[in-house]
């Protein structure tokens, strides 16, 4: 079972751009199904504090007869330590999303995210040089609390310098997390930037990274998360077998 937990969608509805995006989302979803993914999360990104009357804008596609689970995800880009972002389960707006992610922009907020924020995913912009070092002690807190780190690959497919940064950031992330609690997502704005699950797994072996961990990160971890952490929808997730063995055979 493969997951792509970051398909960015923007908020506006009713405009021409929104219709265009709807079409593009359909194309991305169509391709995801073709490539063999089973779960997709539409990601809505908000910079700064959530407005008080924020409504979850994500519309799931009507896909009769298609085996694809659709989730909604909120990513909050946080940059101000003094703000209260209200990231807790009692916040109705936040809990209207299936997944909540946070993207800290400086080291202090990264520490706060790892130690106190109630989120599922910590996202960092891996296509640029990270503005701070990842420390094992900080990252370890997040792992203990069951938070996952996100690696988005589509920027690396777009251009070469992003590819270099991603490889270097991925290595440091994998070093400090010891390969645990990493999820791979596409962050693809366009269908052409998506890749097959096994293709992405293979990239991790090219980068001389312990290969089993990223396999788990694509498949098992997310299932665990959905299975235990979040609300009604998650309870419907059945146990699924991890295709890692098959993947290994395919590769080696």
């Amino acid at each position: 079972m493969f997951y792509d937990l970051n398909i960015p969608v923007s908020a506006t509805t009713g405009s021409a751009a929104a219709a265009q995006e709807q079409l593009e989302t359909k194309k991305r979803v169509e391709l995801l199904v073709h490539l063999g993914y089973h779960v997709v999360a539409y990601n809505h990104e908000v910079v700064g504090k959530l407005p008080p009357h924020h409504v979850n804008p994500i519309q799931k596609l009507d896909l009769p007869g298609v085996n694809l689970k659709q989730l909604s995800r909120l990513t909050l880009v946080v940059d101000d330590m003094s703000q209260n972002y209200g990231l807790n389960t009692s916040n109705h707006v936040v809990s209207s999303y299936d997944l909540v992610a946070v993207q800290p922009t400086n080291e202090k907020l990264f520490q706060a995210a790892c130690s106190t924020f109630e989120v599922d995913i910590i996202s960092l912009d891996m296509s640029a040089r990270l503005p701070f070092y990842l420390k094992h002690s900080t990252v370890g807190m997040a792992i203990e609390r069951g938070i996952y780190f996100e690696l988005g690959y589509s920027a690396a497919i777009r251009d070469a310098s992003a590819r270099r940064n991603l490889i270097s950031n991925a290595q440091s992330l994998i070093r400090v997390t010891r390969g645990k609690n990493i999820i791979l997502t596409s962050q693809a704005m366009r269908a052409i930037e998506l890749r097959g699950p096994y293709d992405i797994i293979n990239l991790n072996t090219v980068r001389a990274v312990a290969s089993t961990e990223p396999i788990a990160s694509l498949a098992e971890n997310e299932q665990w998360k959905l299975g235990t952490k979040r609300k009604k929808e998650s309870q419907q997730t059945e146990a699924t077998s991890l295709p890692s063995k098959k993947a290994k055979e395919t590769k080696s």
Partner: protein
Amino acid sequence: MVRFKNRYIVFDIIYADTPLGLSSLPSAHALRNQPDIALEPFGDTGRHNLRTPALSQKDLIFAIKDSIAENFGDYGVGMTQRALTLKYFSPHTNVGILRVSREEANMVWGAMTFIRQIKGNPCLIKVIHVTGTIKMCQLKTIAYDRDRILYLRRQAQLMQDDEVASRLTQAIHESKSEIDAMEI
């Protein structure tokens, strides 16, 4: 002396207008008839999967080699070029078989993942299977090829394009015998 070992990579090239077979979603052809929606960014590439087999084997192998050079440098090209051969490529279904040396299989696969366009057509390459013997690879390719051709033929029939449909019927037999005849 140890035998030189290869890997065979079965892959599929997916273009912007490749029909993917999700009936509930509008296919690329249906979208094409709606002039108010621009086909950006996956884009109207000007080629049509059912009609224009635009890609030659030579173009494809050059695209793969370029990507190896871009991502892994001269070292990568040097390490891979001895065994790197395109054993089979079907312009109907865009399915192909690439032979690589076993040690560098992951590297070549990685380079293929990073391909974004071939001859100006945006596309992505999906690896279907990796095998150690060409026999298994042939079986996989035949099955996949047949599924794709049958799907394309159904599409052509729905669009009442008899010429393409009959050509595709022929293509099933051609592709099977071609793959079978592939030398080991």
